[in-house]
């Protein structure tokens, strides 16, 4: 390890100027989860942004805003998050790693690291979450789904992620995950959401699978299949079959593509059923 200096950034500006000064040899540290698993040898300076005022959860202008350095456990325990979509995001957090790690890991870190096997990106892509970050003087923003289609790792080498914004949804979401044991990463995961219109038909649907072993991806064809339909048991099965055909799956050391292909429809169906039950429960 070649780290020589450790900086506590007082604010985002200081973090950015330090990052710039290191010319690629500095690294942002929040929870430190990924840095502790291995750091690029050229890193000389660590810039701790947990002191930069980026933690906190609040509602503003119809969005639930979560500061980048808010820990996953803070997210899980927050009243705002528990009240958001029936506690969907809080439930997702309970699936992530173990309590000691959740007390260190930050939501921003999970977004920036964007491990393909992670649970947070799957949930945030499904929720249509938006990321906000600072590059130099500029504040930029993009939906996380779109961000992941860009060279986001390069962006965050010279930027500081500041906030995640979650939109309001009229409907419900559900999360499914299969892992080897408690506290493990996903062998596959999935987040689905549904909303109904006044006539009881599906107004919108969100279907995302992750850890396939690729990063979370929306299954647009499945969402299209569901939109405008009336919830029914056969419909979930039909959507599941479509998901099986549409999802991109692959092999890794943890599970083969064959198993993932077989399990995609199962978890999509289960998540849709649970989301539908929650929506209709609300209606009732």
């Amino acid at each position, binding site marked *: 390890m070649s780290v020589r200096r450790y900086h506590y950034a007082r604010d985002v500006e200081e973090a950015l100027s330090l990052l710039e000064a290191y010319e690629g040899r500095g690294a942002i540290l929040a929870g430190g989860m990924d840095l502790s698993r291995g750091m690029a040898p050229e890193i000389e300076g660590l810039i701790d942004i947990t002191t930069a005022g980026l933690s906190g959860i609040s509602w503003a202008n119809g969005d639930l805003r979560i500061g980048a350095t808010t820990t996953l456990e803070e997210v899980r325990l927050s009243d705002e998050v528990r009240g958001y979509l029936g506690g969907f995001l809080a439930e997702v957090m309970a699936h992530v790693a173990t309590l000691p790690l959740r007390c260190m890991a930050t939501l921003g870190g999970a977004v920036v690291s964007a491990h393909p096997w992670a649970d947070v990106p799957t949930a945030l892509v499904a929720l249509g979450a938006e990321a906000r970050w600072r590059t130099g003087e500029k504040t930029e923003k993009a939906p996380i789904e779109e961000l992941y289609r860009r060279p986001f790792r390069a962006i965050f080498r010279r930027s500081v992620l500041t906030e995640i914004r979650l939109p309001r949804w009229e409907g419900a979401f559900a999360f499914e995950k299969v892992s*080897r044991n408690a506290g493990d990463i996903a062998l596959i995961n999935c987040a689905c959401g549904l909303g109904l219109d006044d006539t009881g038909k599906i107004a919108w649907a969100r279907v995302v699978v992750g850890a396939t072993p690729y990063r979370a991806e929306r299954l647009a064809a499945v969402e299209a299949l569901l939109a405008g339909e009336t919830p029914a048991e056969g419909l979930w099965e039909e959507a599941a079959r479509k998901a099986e055909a549409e999802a991109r799956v692959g092999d890794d050391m943890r599970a083969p593509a064959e198993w993932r292909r077989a399990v995609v429809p199962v978890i999509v169906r289960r998540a849709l059923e649970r989301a539908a039950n929650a929506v209709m429960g609300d209606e009732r």
Partner: protein
Amino acid sequence: MKIVGKSVRKVDGIALATGQPVFTLDAVPPGAAVGKILRSPYAHAEIVRIDTSRAEELPGVLCILHHGNVPRIPYTTAGQGWPEPSPYDSFLFDRKVRFVGDRVAAVAAISEEIADEALRLIEVEYRELPAVLDPAEATAPGAPVIHDEEDARGIHDPEHNVAAAIDIRVGDIVRGFAESDVVVETTCVFPYVQHVPLEPHCVVAYLDEEDRLVIRSATQVPFHVRRIVARALGLPLSRIRVIKPRIGGGFGTKQEIVLEDVAAALALRVRKPVVMKYTRAEEFVAARTRHPMKVRVVLGAKKDGKIHAIEMDVLSNTGAYGTHSLTVLSNVGSKTLPLYNKAPHLWFHGKAVYTNLPVAGAYRGYGATQGYFALEVAVDELAEKLGMDPLELRLKNHIRAGETSPIFEKIGEGRAGKAQVVRSCALEECIREGARRIGWEEKRGKRIREGNWIHGVGMALSMQGSGITDIDMAAATVVMNEDGTFRLLVGATDLGTGSDTILAQIAAEALGVPVEAISVYSSDTDFTPFDTGAYASSTTYVSGGAVLRAAREVRRQILEVAAAILEEPPEELDLEGGHVVSRKSGKRVPLSEVGHRAMYVTDQRHIIATASFVAPESPPPFAAFFAEVAVDTETGVVRGGKFVAAADCGTPINPALAEGQLEGAIVQGIGHTLYEELRFSPRGRVRNPNLFDYRIPTAADVPDVEVVLIPSDEPTGPYGAKSIGEIGINGPAPAIANAIHDAIGVRLYRIPFTPERVLRAIRAKSSA
């Protein structure tokens, strides 16, 4: 009994819980150099050239050892008794490397960073050789020969990569199967799994003021370390002292000399203290693993369910070196076949073969675990074929007190065994109690559905041993202080099991004092008497036997002194509550007075005794295991619901500690049953040498584990005790396999039962 049978507090509990500096690396001498090992990047290669000049020029590098500058002495790293049953196929450093991670060289430097940098600067030219990674291919004609060195000794058939082989016949197996009404054949596969002790291997080696080599090591076998390091380095035994502090878990991997020899060689060369420790990755790759095995069992039975013939055929993979290869192989049969002792026809045969993969060694269960997986799945299949309740089938066939098995005599520790009658056995009660607690009658075959989950129950039996007959020897010294307290010096090694506590309880019981009156010290080859060490489920039985003898001798000496004080014959006197009490007159004298008088006043002597105990036989503990699982048939996920183990360990000296041993072993067994497996690249590199990718059970994964001890009285054991350390790990794999079958009608023969394997088996069955 006043002390035995009570769950007294662990004697080292407070020190451990308050973080006292009790472990090996808590006491590193100032100025110690750091030792590091350069490891082979190839599975099989010859070292053509090694150039250490650039590394040696690095400031802070003190010395570099490799095959070119150390003596070449063949030895085994297996910490076993004498004569050593494992082949001498290892060298401090060799001209050849035999697995990815094998030793190439070692560096001592003034810091870890410099040592790491020095490793990078060592230039090694390898000539890569063809490697063999599949044990089934290792013995094929034309397979690369892994141990072609001429000076290795004791390899069964080096040309065919066979480290060890066994062939034991009882009766006539062909006739046995011919006479059977039903025959089933089952083959089970056990993968590479590692012990994952909390504390990796670590050692400090230094020269004392008299130039003797002191090795402070986290070892289960301090006396074997002394003997083996003496051999490996060509030193007189008298020049070596081994100190064993507290150990952070061993499970068998610390029955191996994996660092002490190198640290000692470095310390001798640089004449400074040297500290070495394995990283977690090294622990996975270059410590030891369980022997991966393929075990084929064929059972023949009569229509009424009487097992008539058993064949067990074993292919064991010992990896690159043959440590414990013969004895683990032997135990696959010797610890399992006597359980079904009614069968007159037995054939137990197998091989332990070399491959260019990590080295297998001792691991809790020691072959029995692999054997029981196959045997108890086979018994379940036999019950299915016979249309019998597997519980009834087992009750009909299992060994009872007063019975024997020819296997006891046929298979010993790398040699013939010794005839033995089972003197204590509460297995039948274990089976009935376990069945009651799991709800066997109510749940079996019901396939209860709960959401996506289908429930099933399965069972398995097991026995183990208590020490190694006629080989395991322990000695203990009991010393009386003048204030009436005692010191207990044992060579036995408490590796977290609580053996110091139960040995203190045995002494306290014999001496009529509370445990607090006994200070236990273990172990130091200079100051504690010999003990073969903590393995083979030996400590309670063998070391406990020695402690009891020594305590009884001290008791005799105390009564002799007290008799003079009380003017009564010693036969009339008892030890009780820290006093000597006369049964006849009721007169009493405190132990402090006895001690004071003996030491300072009259007929002066030190009340002290050392006694030895050799395992005269190896009384088996018994256990019945019951698993309830739930299977998600759409994803293949298996969830443990409940696990019940009912075990007979004779008299539990400390029930809480005995239960802890059982619970810990069960959780470790659930680990290999559901999650654990080392994975390899096509070139033999371990792909998951970390706890992120190699999963072990967490507290959140542990199902509702219920353990119950059903006492028996073992006449040869201290206060009726037998062992409990290993047996618990034999149950989970077969019990869970059988429970999965009960739930979904699918048999699984390869652990771990991952979602992928379970789902594949479900789909294969439904498409068949």
